């Protein structure tokens, strides 16, 4: 079944990109989930769409440039992340308000650029739900660099990020530069989203970052284990979803998410069974 993926270049790009986002999505997602920031991923994915639409518009108007829409999407995503942080500090008491503001701005801009670019409407479906054939070599290199940055920064700042996630006040009292670390984290989130969007699609990108973690939290002990299981579940979902999506001719966003949900259900019922067994043992 894998053979096509190793044979055709466009599928190769997709496959390797899939492996990368199956790693960085759940990796960063573990922090996102425990920090209760899942909605930020949704907000940023819509801003990324606006960037992609803008890139397509530029392409249509000015011909092919070196920068593909992916790079415009990345830039928009990062700018969106910075804006979210600004808004969150302005609306200190209503921090979640930043997300609908950014999300609707993203959708609004997307609509405008999509209609300006015309013709892009055919691709829209792919952008919303992902595609197996959308990753170019050029994009793949961009995503590879993103993955490298994300993994290294998370390793280097792991202990600070973990501390900040667990107890922000404690981090501040101890002299951790919590605002700067948080900012770094949000920028990483923006990068991961733009890297993932071609394969899983705008609407489902946050699922890739949260569903594997939701399953992992059920069974893991400690945070490191949570990350490891999340990545395993993420990779299974992405690889399974890409292959089945390709052969069934379904956008991979759908198949990836459904496999993640299946894993989630399995861990939930598995945990229940296991707990029941343990309880019986404890009572005996």
């Amino acid at each position, binding site marked *: 079944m894998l053979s096509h993926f190793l044979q055709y270049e466009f599928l190769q790009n997709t496959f390797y990109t899939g492996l990368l986002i199956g790693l960085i999505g759940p990796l960063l997602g573990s922090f996102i989930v*425990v920090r*209760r920031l899942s909605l930020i991923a949704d907000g940023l994915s819509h801003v990324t769409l606006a960037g992609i639409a803008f890139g397509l518009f530029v392409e249509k108007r000015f011909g092919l440039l070196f920068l593909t829409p992916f790079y415009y999407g990345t830039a928009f995503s990062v700018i969106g992340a910075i804006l979210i942080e600004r808004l969150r500090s302005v609306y200190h008491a209503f921090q979640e308000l930043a997300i609908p503001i950014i999300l609707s701005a993203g959708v609004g801009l997307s609509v405008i650029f999509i209609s300006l670019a015309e013709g892009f409407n055919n691709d829209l479906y792919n952008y919303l739900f992902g595609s197996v054939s959308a990753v170019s070599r050029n994009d793949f290199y961009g995503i590879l660099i993103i993955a490298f940055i994300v993994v290294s920064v998370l390793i*280097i*700042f792991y*202990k*600070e990020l*973990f*501390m900040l*996630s*667990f*107890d922000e*006040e*404690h*981090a*501040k*009292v*101890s*002299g*951790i530069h919590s605002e700067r670390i948080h900012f770094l984290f949000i920028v990483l989130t923006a990068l991961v989203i733009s890297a993932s969007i071609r394969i899983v699609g705008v609407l489902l990108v946050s699922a890739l970052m949260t569903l594997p973690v939701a399953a*992992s*939290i059920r069974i*893991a*002990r*400690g*945070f*490191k*284990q*949570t990350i490891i299981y999340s990545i395993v579940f993420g990779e299974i979902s992405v690889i399974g979803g890409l292959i089945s999506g390709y052969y069934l001719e379904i956008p991979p966003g759908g198949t990836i998410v459904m496999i993640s949900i299946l894993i989630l259900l399995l861990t939930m019922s598995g945990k229940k069974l296991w707990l029941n067994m343990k309880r019986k043992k404890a009572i005996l």
Partner: protein
Amino acid sequence: MNVPIVEIKNLSYAYEDKIALNDINLDIHEGAFLGLIGPNGGGKTTLIKLLLGLITPQQGSIRVFGQDIKQFKDANKIGFVSQKSNAFNRGFPATVKEVVATGLTAKVGYFKFFTKKDHQKVIEAIETVGMSEYINQNIGDLSGGQQQRIFIARAIVSDPKLLILDEPTVGIDTEHVQRFYQLLNKLNQENKITLLLVSHDIGTVTKYANGVACLNKVMHFHGGTNEFENISDQQLSQFYGHDLNLVTHHH
């Protein structure tokens, strides 16, 4: 007893238009075990936030370890157990060990990883609070009192000179409260950690602490436990406003 490690002079603080602390003076000497008592809203947590540099005083000065609080950078010298410690997200997937290790994060510093020695320290701190058998459990699966002990381990793992505890015994049953105070005593006597403990339990504070400060916007009393025992109940009720019958004093 030489230079006090905490020197508070003429300190006032107001939240917007509401004054929380008015002209406070307080010295804490090395080796002390000071109990800070006072009614709800008396300003105890505010005083602690000021000491930790979370908020800055509008008037007066605070010196810690001989340095003005604004210049003070050596946060590792102060350990802190918050009143809200166990208000954390109970579903957070972190083991006891992982949580206690965060107490070393700032000390180890940026761009560095935990060493074997650091891990050893974490294990020792967990031992000190008597929680070794739970080391690999998720913190959310422990009882409230056990969690509180873990937060003490987190606070002491970096070898602080001063440990500040804001009502750490809320929700702990009486037997464990006694054990908890014995643990504090041990930290004070054996590990030579200076303690500042906020509590509503006057009876127990006077039993274990060697000094008492009574705060209700102004500092009503600050002195040794013996002097404190000589204060009449009536005077104490005045400090508190009125409803003191809730708390036990002389025992």
